[in-house]
Protein backbone atom coordinates (compact mmCIF):
# COMPACT_ATOMS: atom_id res chain seq x y z
CA UNK A 1 0.00 0.00 0.00
CA UNK A 2 1.46 3.35 -0.95
CA UNK A 3 1.06 6.13 1.56
CA UNK A 4 -1.32 8.97 0.76
CA UNK A 5 0.62 12.21 1.15
CA UNK A 6 -0.08 15.94 1.31
CA UNK A 7 2.80 18.29 0.53
CA UNK A 8 2.88 21.57 2.43
CA UNK A 9 5.50 24.06 1.37
CA UNK A 10 5.30 27.69 0.36
CA UNK A 11 7.57 27.10 -2.64
CA UNK A 12 5.65 25.61 -5.56
CA UNK A 13 8.93 24.70 -7.20
CA UNK A 14 9.94 22.60 -4.23
CA UNK A 15 6.57 20.81 -4.14
CA UNK A 16 6.86 20.02 -7.84
CA UNK A 17 10.39 18.74 -7.33
CA UNK A 18 9.42 16.47 -4.45
CA UNK A 19 6.38 15.17 -6.32
CA UNK A 20 8.53 14.32 -9.35
CA UNK A 21 11.28 12.74 -7.30
CA UNK A 22 8.98 10.57 -5.25
CA UNK A 23 7.17 9.44 -8.41
CA UNK A 24 4.82 6.56 -7.76
CA UNK A 25 6.43 5.54 -4.51
CA UNK A 26 3.80 7.61 -2.73
CA UNK A 27 0.37 8.84 -3.65
CA UNK A 28 0.34 12.63 -3.48
CA UNK A 29 -3.27 13.55 -2.78
CA UNK A 30 -2.86 17.26 -2.18
CA UNK A 31 -0.59 20.28 -2.01
CA UNK A 32 -0.74 23.51 -0.06
CA UNK A 33 1.33 26.67 0.04
CA UNK A 34 0.06 28.35 3.21
CA UNK A 35 -0.90 27.09 6.67
CA UNK A 36 -4.57 27.99 6.14
CA UNK A 37 -4.60 26.23 2.81
CA UNK A 38 -2.86 23.24 4.36
CA UNK A 39 -5.42 22.91 7.16
CA UNK A 40 -8.26 22.89 4.63
CA UNK A 41 -6.55 20.39 2.33
CA UNK A 42 -5.56 18.04 5.13
CA UNK A 43 -9.07 18.11 6.65
CA UNK A 44 -10.55 17.33 3.27
CA UNK A 45 -8.23 14.52 2.24
CA UNK A 46 -7.15 13.01 5.61
CA UNK A 47 -3.83 11.71 4.26
CA UNK A 48 -1.58 9.16 5.95
CA UNK A 49 1.37 11.52 6.00
CA UNK A 50 1.77 15.28 5.75
CA UNK A 51 5.16 16.52 4.58
CA UNK A 52 5.28 19.77 6.48
CA UNK A 53 7.64 22.63 5.85
CA UNK A 54 8.77 24.13 9.15
CA UNK A 55 9.25 27.62 7.77
CA UNK A 56 6.33 29.24 6.00
CA UNK A 57 4.75 32.66 6.18
CA UNK A 58 1.74 32.99 8.52
CA UNK A 59 3.01 30.76 11.32
CA UNK A 60 4.81 27.96 9.54
CA UNK A 61 4.36 24.26 10.14
CA UNK A 62 3.77 24.90 13.81
CA UNK A 63 0.51 26.72 13.07
CA UNK A 64 -0.78 23.73 11.11
CA UNK A 65 0.14 21.27 13.86
CA UNK A 66 -1.37 23.36 16.61
CA UNK A 67 -4.60 23.70 14.69
CA UNK A 68 -5.23 20.12 13.62
CA UNK A 69 -2.38 17.96 14.95
CA UNK A 70 -4.41 16.34 17.70
CA UNK A 71 -7.75 16.14 15.90
CA UNK A 72 -6.58 13.73 13.21
CA UNK A 73 -5.17 10.64 14.92
CA UNK A 74 -4.58 8.77 11.67
CA UNK A 75 -2.64 11.55 9.98
CA UNK A 76 1.04 11.76 10.80
CA UNK A 77 3.31 14.71 10.24
CA UNK A 78 6.88 14.65 9.01
CA UNK A 79 8.70 17.96 9.34
CA UNK A 80 10.89 19.10 6.48
CA UNK A 81 13.17 22.06 6.58
CA UNK A 82 16.30 23.70 5.34
CA UNK A 83 16.53 25.30 8.71
CA UNK A 84 19.39 24.92 11.14
CA UNK A 85 17.34 26.55 13.87
CA UNK A 86 17.08 23.98 16.60
CA UNK A 87 14.30 25.68 18.51
CA UNK A 88 11.99 25.70 15.48
CA UNK A 89 12.52 22.03 14.83
CA UNK A 90 12.11 21.08 18.49
CA UNK A 91 8.94 23.17 18.66
CA UNK A 92 7.44 21.32 15.69
CA UNK A 93 8.35 17.92 17.18
CA UNK A 94 6.88 18.92 20.53
CA UNK A 95 3.72 19.97 18.72
CA UNK A 96 3.35 16.44 17.40
CA UNK A 97 5.46 15.84 14.32
CA UNK A 98 6.76 12.28 14.08
CA UNK A 99 10.11 13.14 12.67
CA UNK A 100 12.29 15.69 11.00
CA UNK A 101 14.34 15.51 7.84
CA UNK A 102 16.33 18.16 6.00
CA UNK A 103 15.47 19.20 2.48
CA UNK A 104 18.80 17.91 1.23
CA UNK A 105 17.57 14.35 1.84
CA UNK A 106 17.78 12.03 -1.14
CA UNK A 107 14.56 10.91 -2.83
CA UNK A 108 15.10 7.32 -1.72
CA UNK A 109 15.62 8.32 1.89
CA UNK A 110 12.59 10.59 1.79
CA UNK A 111 10.38 7.84 0.39
CA UNK A 112 11.71 5.54 3.10
CA UNK A 113 11.06 8.14 5.81
CA UNK A 114 7.48 8.67 4.60
CA UNK A 115 6.83 4.94 4.64
CA UNK A 116 8.27 4.65 8.12
CA UNK A 117 6.13 7.48 9.47
CA UNK A 118 3.04 6.03 7.78
CA UNK A 119 3.78 2.75 9.57
CA UNK A 120 3.79 4.55 12.92
CA UNK A 121 7.53 4.80 13.44
CA UNK A 122 9.49 7.94 14.09
CA UNK A 123 12.15 9.38 11.86
CA UNK A 124 15.33 10.76 13.33
CA UNK A 125 17.59 12.46 10.90
CA UNK A 126 21.14 12.84 12.22
CA UNK A 127 20.46 16.52 12.76
CA UNK A 128 17.37 15.91 14.85
CA UNK A 129 19.33 13.38 16.92
CA UNK A 130 21.94 16.09 17.48
CA UNK A 131 19.30 18.62 18.53
CA UNK A 132 17.80 16.19 20.99
CA UNK A 133 21.16 15.23 22.47
CA UNK A 134 21.84 18.91 22.88
CA UNK A 135 18.48 19.49 24.54
CA UNK A 136 19.00 16.69 27.06
CA UNK A 137 22.65 17.45 27.63
CA UNK A 138 24.33 17.10 31.05
CA UNK A 139 21.15 17.16 33.03
CA UNK A 140 21.17 18.99 36.34
CA UNK A 141 17.72 17.62 36.99
CA UNK A 142 15.20 20.18 38.04
CA UNK A 143 12.14 19.08 39.98
CA UNK A 144 9.43 18.23 37.52
CA UNK A 145 6.07 16.56 37.20
CA UNK A 146 7.37 13.31 35.85
CA UNK A 147 11.11 12.73 36.15
CA UNK A 148 10.88 9.78 33.77
CA UNK A 149 10.44 12.13 30.89
CA UNK A 150 13.30 14.33 31.85
CA UNK A 151 16.22 12.02 31.33
CA UNK A 152 17.41 9.84 28.55
CA UNK A 153 18.57 6.37 29.52
CA UNK A 154 22.18 5.54 28.68
CA UNK A 155 20.91 3.21 25.97
CA UNK A 156 18.75 5.91 24.41
CA UNK A 157 21.73 8.23 24.45
CA UNK A 158 23.80 5.59 22.69
CA UNK A 159 21.15 5.13 20.03
CA UNK A 160 20.87 8.88 19.49
CA UNK A 161 24.65 9.25 19.19
CA UNK A 162 24.78 6.58 16.52
CA UNK A 163 21.88 8.23 14.69
CA UNK A 164 23.73 11.53 14.83
CA UNK A 165 26.83 9.83 13.43
CA UNK A 166 24.81 8.80 10.40
CA UNK A 167 23.98 5.18 11.28
CA UNK A 168 20.82 3.60 9.93
CA UNK A 169 18.53 1.63 12.29
CA UNK A 170 19.86 -1.60 10.85
CA UNK A 171 23.46 -0.58 11.48
CA UNK A 172 22.65 0.56 15.01
CA UNK A 173 21.04 -2.79 15.72
CA UNK A 174 24.19 -4.58 14.54
CA UNK A 175 26.45 -2.23 16.47
CA UNK A 176 24.61 -2.61 19.78
CA UNK A 177 23.63 -6.27 19.33
CA UNK A 178 19.91 -5.52 19.60
CA UNK A 179 17.03 -6.00 17.20
CA UNK A 180 15.86 -3.34 14.80
CA UNK A 181 12.54 -3.36 16.61
CA UNK A 182 14.33 -2.40 19.85
CA UNK A 183 16.10 0.44 18.10
CA UNK A 184 12.75 1.71 16.86
CA UNK A 185 11.34 1.49 20.35
CA UNK A 186 14.21 3.51 21.75
CA UNK A 187 13.74 6.13 19.06
CA UNK A 188 10.03 6.52 19.66
CA UNK A 189 10.60 6.64 23.43
CA UNK A 190 13.02 9.49 22.92
CA UNK A 191 10.51 11.32 20.77
CA UNK A 192 7.82 10.85 23.39
CA UNK A 193 10.13 12.15 26.10
CA UNK A 194 10.89 15.15 24.00
CA UNK A 195 7.19 15.84 23.56
CA UNK A 196 6.15 15.23 27.14
CA UNK A 197 9.13 16.47 29.08
CA UNK A 198 8.48 19.48 31.19
CA UNK A 199 12.15 19.66 31.76
CA UNK A 200 13.56 22.91 32.90
CA UNK A 201 16.48 22.39 30.55
CA UNK A 202 14.33 22.25 27.48
CA UNK A 203 12.98 25.70 28.01
CA UNK A 204 16.30 27.09 29.16
CA UNK A 205 18.00 25.48 26.20
CA UNK A 206 15.47 26.95 23.82
CA UNK A 207 15.92 30.34 25.39
CA UNK A 208 19.68 30.05 25.05
CA UNK A 209 19.24 29.35 21.39
CA UNK A 210 17.01 32.33 20.88
CA UNK A 211 19.48 34.63 22.54
CA UNK A 212 22.10 33.64 19.99
Amino acid at each position, binding site marked *: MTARVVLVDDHAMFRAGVRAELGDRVDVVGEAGTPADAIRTIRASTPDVVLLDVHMPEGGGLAVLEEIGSSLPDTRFLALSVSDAAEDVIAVIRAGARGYVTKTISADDLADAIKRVADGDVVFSPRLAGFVLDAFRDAPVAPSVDPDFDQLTPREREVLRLL*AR*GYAYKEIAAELFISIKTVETHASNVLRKLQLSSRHQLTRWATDRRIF
Partner: protein
Amino acid sequence: MTATVPSTRRLYRRPDRGLGGVAAGIAEHVGVRVGLVRLAFVILSTAGGMGVALYGAYWIVLPTAPGAPRSRIPAWLEYTIAAVAAVAAIGIAAWTMPLGGLFAPTMLACLGGALIWRQATDPERDRWRRLSRTSLAAGGTDRVGRIRLVAGSALVVTGAVLVLARADFTAIRDGLLAMAVTVVGIALLTGPMWMRTMAQLGLERNERIRSQERADIAAHLHDSVLQTLALIQRNAASPREVARLARGQERELRNLLYGTRTASGQLADELRSAAAEIEDAYAISIEVVLVADAPLSPGLAAAAAASREALVNAAKHAGVTTVSLYAEVEPDAVSIFVKDRGVGFDLDAVAADRQGVRGSIIDRIERHGGEVKVRSQPGSGTEVEIRMPLR
Protein backbone atom coordinates in the same frame (compact mmCIF):
# COMPACT_ATOMS: atom_id res chain seq x y z
CA MET B 1 44.47 56.29 -6.55
CA THR B 2 47.97 57.51 -5.96
CA ALA B 3 48.64 60.64 -3.98
CA THR B 4 51.45 62.69 -5.37
CA VAL B 5 53.67 63.83 -2.57
CA PRO B 6 55.45 67.08 -3.38
CA SER B 7 59.17 66.45 -3.12
CA THR B 8 60.33 68.58 -0.21
CA ARG B 9 63.86 69.64 0.46
CA ARG B 10 64.88 68.28 3.79
CA LEU B 11 67.52 69.52 6.13
CA TYR B 12 70.37 67.02 6.25
CA ARG B 13 73.84 66.98 7.75
CA ARG B 14 76.72 66.69 5.32
CA PRO B 15 79.25 64.71 7.38
CA ASP B 16 81.54 64.47 4.38
CA ARG B 17 82.23 68.18 4.76
CA GLY B 18 83.58 69.61 7.99
CA LEU B 19 83.25 68.28 11.53
CA GLY B 20 79.65 67.13 11.84
CA GLY B 21 78.49 68.60 8.56
CA VAL B 22 75.91 70.73 10.36
CA ALA B 23 77.03 74.06 8.97
CA ALA B 24 77.37 72.66 5.47
CA GLY B 25 73.93 71.08 5.71
CA ILE B 26 72.27 74.29 6.85
CA ALA B 27 74.13 76.30 4.25
CA GLU B 28 72.92 73.97 1.53
CA HIS B 29 69.39 74.02 2.83
CA VAL B 30 69.13 77.76 3.22
CA GLY B 31 71.23 78.57 0.20
CA VAL B 32 74.04 80.66 1.69
CA ARG B 33 77.77 80.16 1.82
CA VAL B 34 79.11 77.70 4.41
CA GLY B 35 81.45 80.30 5.79
CA LEU B 36 78.57 82.53 6.85
CA VAL B 37 76.88 79.76 8.77
CA ARG B 38 80.12 78.82 10.47
CA LEU B 39 80.67 82.45 11.41
CA ALA B 40 77.20 82.60 12.91
CA PHE B 41 77.98 79.57 15.06
CA VAL B 42 81.24 81.09 16.24
CA ILE B 43 79.54 84.39 17.14
CA LEU B 44 76.80 82.52 18.97
CA SER B 45 79.44 80.56 20.86
CA THR B 46 80.72 83.73 22.45
CA ALA B 47 77.23 84.27 23.86
CA GLY B 48 77.53 81.84 26.73
CA GLY B 49 78.45 78.89 24.51
CA MET B 50 75.09 78.94 22.77
CA GLY B 51 76.71 78.25 19.38
CA VAL B 52 78.44 75.13 20.62
CA ALA B 53 75.25 73.85 22.23
CA LEU B 54 73.23 74.51 19.09
CA TYR B 55 75.83 72.82 16.91
CA GLY B 56 75.81 69.82 19.17
CA ALA B 57 72.03 69.64 19.20
CA TYR B 58 71.86 69.81 15.42
CA TRP B 59 74.53 67.17 15.15
CA ILE B 60 72.47 64.81 17.20
CA VAL B 61 69.06 65.60 15.76
CA LEU B 62 69.71 66.01 12.06
CA PRO B 63 69.82 62.89 9.92
CA THR B 64 72.26 62.40 7.09
CA ALA B 65 70.80 62.28 3.62
CA PRO B 66 69.92 58.73 2.54
CA GLY B 67 72.66 57.41 0.31
CA ALA B 68 74.94 60.31 1.20
CA PRO B 69 78.68 59.70 1.40
CA ARG B 70 79.64 58.47 4.81
CA SER B 71 81.33 60.62 7.39
CA ARG B 72 85.10 60.88 7.29
CA ILE B 73 85.05 60.31 11.04
CA PRO B 74 84.02 56.88 12.32
CA ALA B 75 80.70 56.78 14.13
CA TRP B 76 82.09 56.03 17.58
CA LEU B 77 84.46 58.99 17.39
CA GLU B 78 81.59 61.15 16.25
CA TYR B 79 79.53 60.18 19.29
CA THR B 80 82.48 60.69 21.62
CA ILE B 81 83.14 64.18 20.25
CA ALA B 82 79.43 64.98 20.57
CA ALA B 83 79.34 63.76 24.16
CA VAL B 84 82.53 65.59 25.17
CA ALA B 85 81.39 68.78 23.48
CA ALA B 86 77.97 68.59 25.12
CA VAL B 87 79.41 67.96 28.56
CA ALA B 88 81.97 70.73 28.11
CA ALA B 89 79.41 73.23 26.88
CA ILE B 90 77.01 72.45 29.69
CA GLY B 91 79.84 72.53 32.22
CA ILE B 92 81.04 75.93 31.02
CA ALA B 93 77.51 77.23 30.99
CA ALA B 94 76.92 75.98 34.52
CA TRP B 95 80.16 77.60 35.67
CA THR B 96 79.90 80.98 34.07
CA MET B 97 76.25 81.87 33.68
CA PRO B 98 74.37 83.30 36.64
CA LEU B 99 71.62 80.79 36.09
CA GLY B 100 73.85 77.91 35.08
CA GLY B 101 72.55 75.79 37.89
CA LEU B 102 69.16 75.81 36.23
CA PHE B 103 70.28 75.97 32.63
CA ALA B 104 72.55 72.95 32.65
CA PRO B 105 70.00 70.34 33.78
CA THR B 106 67.43 71.73 31.36
CA MET B 107 69.86 71.50 28.48
CA LEU B 108 70.89 67.99 29.51
CA ALA B 109 67.28 66.86 29.60
CA CYS B 110 66.64 68.36 26.15
CA LEU B 111 69.70 66.69 24.70
CA GLY B 112 68.76 63.38 26.28
CA GLY B 113 65.27 63.63 24.84
CA ALA B 114 66.64 64.46 21.42
CA LEU B 115 69.01 61.53 21.60
CA ILE B 116 66.27 59.10 22.58
CA TRP B 117 64.03 60.44 19.85
CA ARG B 118 66.71 59.97 17.27
CA GLN B 119 67.48 56.44 18.35
CA ALA B 120 63.84 55.37 18.30
CA THR B 121 62.51 53.52 15.29
CA ASP B 122 59.49 54.79 13.41
CA PRO B 123 56.87 52.57 15.07
CA GLU B 124 58.18 53.60 18.48
CA ARG B 125 57.95 57.30 17.68
CA ASP B 126 54.54 56.64 16.34
CA ARG B 127 53.48 54.97 19.53
CA TRP B 128 54.91 57.79 21.65
CA ARG B 129 53.04 60.38 19.69
CA ARG B 130 49.83 58.44 20.15
CA LEU B 131 50.54 58.00 23.84
CA SER B 132 51.20 61.66 24.41
CA ARG B 133 48.06 62.50 22.49
CA THR B 134 45.89 60.08 24.45
CA SER B 135 47.38 61.16 27.75
CA LEU B 136 46.02 64.62 27.15
CA ALA B 137 42.89 63.92 25.16
CA ALA B 138 41.77 60.85 27.05
CA GLY B 139 42.90 62.21 30.37
CA GLY B 140 39.35 62.39 31.62
CA THR B 141 38.19 58.95 30.55
CA ASP B 142 41.20 56.67 30.67
CA ARG B 143 42.38 55.71 34.16
CA VAL B 144 46.07 55.51 33.28
CA GLY B 145 45.78 58.74 31.34
CA ARG B 146 44.22 60.45 34.34
CA ILE B 147 47.00 59.31 36.67
CA ARG B 148 49.61 60.48 34.18
CA LEU B 149 47.94 63.83 33.80
CA VAL B 150 47.76 64.38 37.56
CA ALA B 151 51.36 63.24 38.12
CA GLY B 152 52.64 65.43 35.28
CA SER B 153 50.80 68.50 36.52
CA ALA B 154 52.04 67.90 40.06
CA LEU B 155 55.65 67.69 38.87
CA VAL B 156 55.39 70.86 36.82
CA VAL B 157 53.81 72.82 39.65
CA THR B 158 56.36 71.52 42.18
CA GLY B 159 59.23 72.45 39.88
CA ALA B 160 57.88 75.96 39.31
CA VAL B 161 57.30 76.53 43.02
CA LEU B 162 60.81 75.33 43.88
CA VAL B 163 62.40 77.59 41.28
CA LEU B 164 60.39 80.64 42.32
CA ALA B 165 61.00 80.03 46.01
CA ARG B 166 64.73 79.53 45.68
CA ALA B 167 65.89 82.01 43.09
CA ASP B 168 65.87 85.74 43.48
CA PHE B 169 63.75 87.34 40.85
CA THR B 170 65.92 89.93 39.17
CA ALA B 171 68.58 87.33 38.43
CA ILE B 172 66.10 84.83 37.17
CA ARG B 173 64.39 87.24 34.81
CA ASP B 174 67.26 87.61 32.39
CA GLY B 175 67.94 83.90 32.41
CA LEU B 176 64.31 82.99 31.82
CA LEU B 177 64.08 85.51 29.01
CA ALA B 178 67.20 84.12 27.33
CA MET B 179 65.88 80.61 27.68
CA ALA B 180 62.49 81.54 26.27
CA VAL B 181 64.11 83.26 23.30
CA THR B 182 66.28 80.24 22.65
CA VAL B 183 63.38 77.84 22.85
CA VAL B 184 61.28 79.95 20.48
CA GLY B 185 64.23 80.19 18.12
CA ILE B 186 64.77 76.46 18.09
CA ALA B 187 61.07 75.88 17.58
CA LEU B 188 61.06 78.24 14.61
CA LEU B 189 64.14 76.63 13.11
CA THR B 190 63.18 73.02 13.54
CA GLY B 191 59.39 73.33 13.53
CA PRO B 192 58.87 72.67 9.83
CA MET B 193 61.09 69.64 10.01
CA TRP B 194 59.11 68.18 12.90
CA MET B 195 55.85 68.78 11.09
CA ARG B 196 57.18 67.06 8.03
CA THR B 197 58.39 64.12 10.07
CA MET B 198 54.93 63.74 11.59
CA ALA B 199 53.26 63.83 8.19
CA GLN B 200 55.72 61.32 6.85
CA LEU B 201 55.09 58.96 9.75
CA GLY B 202 51.37 59.04 9.06
CA LEU B 203 51.93 58.31 5.38
CA GLU B 204 54.24 55.43 6.16
CA ARG B 205 51.78 53.89 8.58
CA ASN B 206 48.97 54.03 6.05
CA GLU B 207 51.24 52.49 3.45
CA ARG B 208 52.11 49.67 5.82
CA ILE B 209 48.46 48.90 6.54
CA ARG B 210 47.65 48.94 2.86
CA SER B 211 50.45 46.59 1.90
CA GLN B 212 49.46 44.18 4.64
CA GLU B 213 45.91 44.10 3.35
CA ARG B 214 47.20 43.46 -0.13
CA ALA B 215 49.22 40.51 1.15
CA ASP B 216 46.18 39.07 2.93
CA ILE B 217 44.05 39.33 -0.17
CA ALA B 218 46.78 37.78 -2.30
CA ALA B 219 47.04 34.85 0.10
CA HIS B 220 43.28 34.42 0.09
CA LEU B 221 43.05 34.54 -3.69
CA HIS B 222 45.78 31.97 -3.93
CA ASP B 223 44.05 29.58 -1.55
CA SER B 224 40.58 29.89 -2.98
CA VAL B 225 40.25 31.45 -6.38
CA LEU B 226 43.26 29.80 -8.01
CA GLN B 227 42.23 26.49 -6.51
CA THR B 228 38.74 26.88 -7.91
CA LEU B 229 40.01 27.86 -11.34
CA ALA B 230 42.15 24.73 -11.40
CA LEU B 231 39.13 22.61 -10.48
CA ILE B 232 37.02 24.32 -13.13
CA GLN B 233 39.59 23.49 -15.78
CA ARG B 234 39.61 19.88 -14.70
CA ASN B 235 35.81 19.73 -14.79
CA ALA B 236 35.33 21.72 -17.96
CA ALA B 237 33.31 18.88 -19.48
CA SER B 238 30.61 19.09 -16.84
CA PRO B 239 28.55 22.28 -16.95
CA ARG B 240 26.80 21.41 -13.70
CA GLU B 241 30.07 21.02 -11.90
CA VAL B 242 31.46 24.25 -13.29
CA ALA B 243 28.36 26.14 -12.24
CA ARG B 244 28.58 24.71 -8.75
CA LEU B 245 32.25 25.60 -8.39
CA ALA B 246 31.57 29.10 -9.63
CA ARG B 247 28.70 29.53 -7.21
CA GLY B 248 30.76 28.36 -4.28
CA GLN B 249 33.57 30.70 -5.19
CA GLU B 250 31.17 33.58 -5.63
CA ARG B 251 29.82 33.02 -2.14
CA GLU B 252 33.30 32.96 -0.71
CA LEU B 253 34.34 36.12 -2.48
CA ARG B 254 31.22 37.84 -1.27
CA ASN B 255 32.13 36.84 2.24
CA LEU B 256 35.59 38.25 1.74
CA LEU B 257 34.40 41.50 0.19
CA TYR B 258 31.42 42.19 2.38
CA GLY B 259 32.77 40.39 5.43
CA THR B 260 29.90 38.28 6.68
CA ARG B 261 31.98 35.51 8.15
CA THR B 262 34.63 35.95 10.77
CA ALA B 263 36.55 33.25 12.47
CA SER B 264 35.08 33.06 15.92
CA GLY B 265 37.63 30.68 17.37
CA GLN B 266 34.99 28.09 18.23
CA LEU B 267 35.19 24.41 17.33
CA ALA B 268 31.71 24.33 15.79
CA ASP B 269 32.43 27.21 13.42
CA GLU B 270 35.71 25.67 12.42
CA LEU B 271 34.10 22.33 11.59
CA ARG B 272 31.14 23.94 9.85
CA SER B 273 33.31 26.06 7.59
CA ALA B 274 35.64 23.13 6.83
CA ALA B 275 32.62 21.04 5.84
CA ALA B 276 31.24 23.85 3.68
CA GLU B 277 34.53 24.23 1.85
CA ILE B 278 34.84 20.51 1.20
CA GLU B 279 31.23 20.35 0.03
CA ASP B 280 32.05 23.08 -2.46
CA ALA B 281 35.32 21.63 -3.58
CA TYR B 282 34.30 18.01 -4.05
CA ALA B 283 30.61 18.21 -4.93
CA ILE B 284 29.44 16.08 -2.02
CA SER B 285 27.05 16.89 0.76
CA ILE B 286 28.16 16.66 4.35
CA GLU B 287 25.61 16.08 7.07
CA VAL B 288 27.03 18.16 9.90
CA VAL B 289 25.69 17.48 13.38
CA LEU B 290 27.25 19.32 16.28
CA VAL B 291 26.34 18.96 19.93
CA ALA B 292 27.61 21.76 22.18
CA ASP B 293 30.66 23.84 21.45
CA ALA B 294 34.05 24.72 22.89
CA PRO B 295 36.68 27.37 22.26
CA LEU B 296 39.44 26.28 19.93
CA SER B 297 42.49 25.12 21.91
CA PRO B 298 45.59 23.87 20.06
CA GLY B 299 44.38 20.32 20.61
CA LEU B 300 40.92 21.08 19.24
CA ALA B 301 42.40 22.96 16.31
CA ALA B 302 44.39 19.84 15.50
CA ALA B 303 41.23 17.75 15.87
CA ALA B 304 39.39 20.08 13.50
CA ALA B 305 42.22 19.94 10.98
CA ALA B 306 42.34 16.14 11.20
CA SER B 307 38.55 15.97 10.76
CA ARG B 308 38.89 18.11 7.70
CA GLU B 309 41.48 15.69 6.35
CA ALA B 310 39.20 12.75 7.07
CA LEU B 311 36.37 14.53 5.21
CA VAL B 312 38.64 15.14 2.25
CA ASN B 313 39.65 11.47 2.21
CA ALA B 314 36.01 10.41 2.27
CA ALA B 315 35.16 12.89 -0.48
CA LYS B 316 38.03 11.73 -2.66
CA HIS B 317 38.13 8.00 -2.15
CA ALA B 318 34.83 6.72 -0.78
CA GLY B 319 32.86 7.22 -3.96
CA VAL B 320 29.76 8.54 -2.21
CA THR B 321 27.70 11.71 -2.36
CA THR B 322 27.07 12.13 1.35
CA VAL B 323 29.38 12.00 4.33
CA SER B 324 28.40 12.38 7.97
CA LEU B 325 30.28 14.59 10.40
CA TYR B 326 29.30 14.38 14.04
CA ALA B 327 31.03 16.23 16.86
CA GLU B 328 30.06 16.23 20.48
CA VAL B 329 31.67 18.24 23.24
CA GLU B 330 31.49 16.27 26.45
CA PRO B 331 32.63 17.58 29.83
CA ASP B 332 36.08 15.99 29.59
CA ALA B 333 36.65 15.36 25.89
CA VAL B 334 35.52 16.08 22.36
CA SER B 335 34.50 13.24 20.07
CA ILE B 336 34.36 13.70 16.33
CA PHE B 337 33.12 11.08 13.88
CA VAL B 338 33.50 11.16 10.13
CA LYS B 339 31.51 8.41 8.48
CA ASP B 340 30.78 7.41 4.94
CA ARG B 341 29.05 4.42 3.38
CA GLY B 342 31.51 4.20 0.54
CA VAL B 343 33.85 1.56 -0.79
CA GLY B 344 35.88 1.27 2.41
CA PHE B 345 39.30 -0.30 2.48
CA ASP B 346 41.31 -3.01 4.14
CA LEU B 347 43.26 -1.38 6.95
CA ASP B 348 46.00 -4.00 6.91
CA ALA B 349 46.47 -3.74 3.18
CA VAL B 350 47.30 -0.05 3.22
CA ALA B 351 51.00 0.34 2.60
CA ALA B 352 52.94 1.62 5.57
CA ASP B 353 54.40 4.46 3.55
CA ARG B 354 51.02 5.93 2.68
CA GLN B 355 51.16 9.26 4.46
CA GLY B 356 47.58 10.44 4.21
CA VAL B 357 45.90 8.91 7.23
CA ARG B 358 49.01 8.26 9.27
CA GLY B 359 50.63 11.68 9.04
CA SER B 360 47.79 14.12 8.71
CA ILE B 361 45.29 12.43 10.99
CA ILE B 362 46.72 9.93 13.45
CA ASP B 363 50.09 11.52 14.22
CA ARG B 364 48.60 14.97 14.43
CA ILE B 365 46.01 13.87 16.98
CA GLU B 366 48.40 11.76 19.04
CA ARG B 367 50.84 14.63 19.30
CA HIS B 368 48.13 16.53 21.13
CA GLY B 369 47.25 13.65 23.43
CA GLY B 370 44.18 12.46 21.57
CA GLU B 371 43.39 9.15 19.92
CA VAL B 372 42.09 8.05 16.56
CA LYS B 373 40.19 4.92 15.61
CA VAL B 374 39.62 4.03 12.01
CA ARG B 375 37.03 1.41 11.23
CA SER B 376 36.71 0.27 7.68
CA GLN B 377 35.98 -2.77 5.63
CA PRO B 378 35.92 -3.13 1.88
CA GLY B 379 32.38 -2.50 0.73
CA SER B 380 30.93 -1.25 4.01
CA GLY B 381 32.23 2.25 4.38
CA THR B 382 34.67 3.94 6.70
CA GLU B 383 34.37 5.68 10.01
CA VAL B 384 37.12 7.78 11.56
CA GLU B 385 36.71 8.51 15.25
CA ILE B 386 38.77 11.28 16.78
CA ARG B 387 38.80 11.78 20.52
CA MET B 388 40.58 14.75 22.03
CA PRO B 389 40.64 15.27 25.81
CA LEU B 390 39.83 18.74 27.05
CA ARG B 391 42.76 20.08 28.99
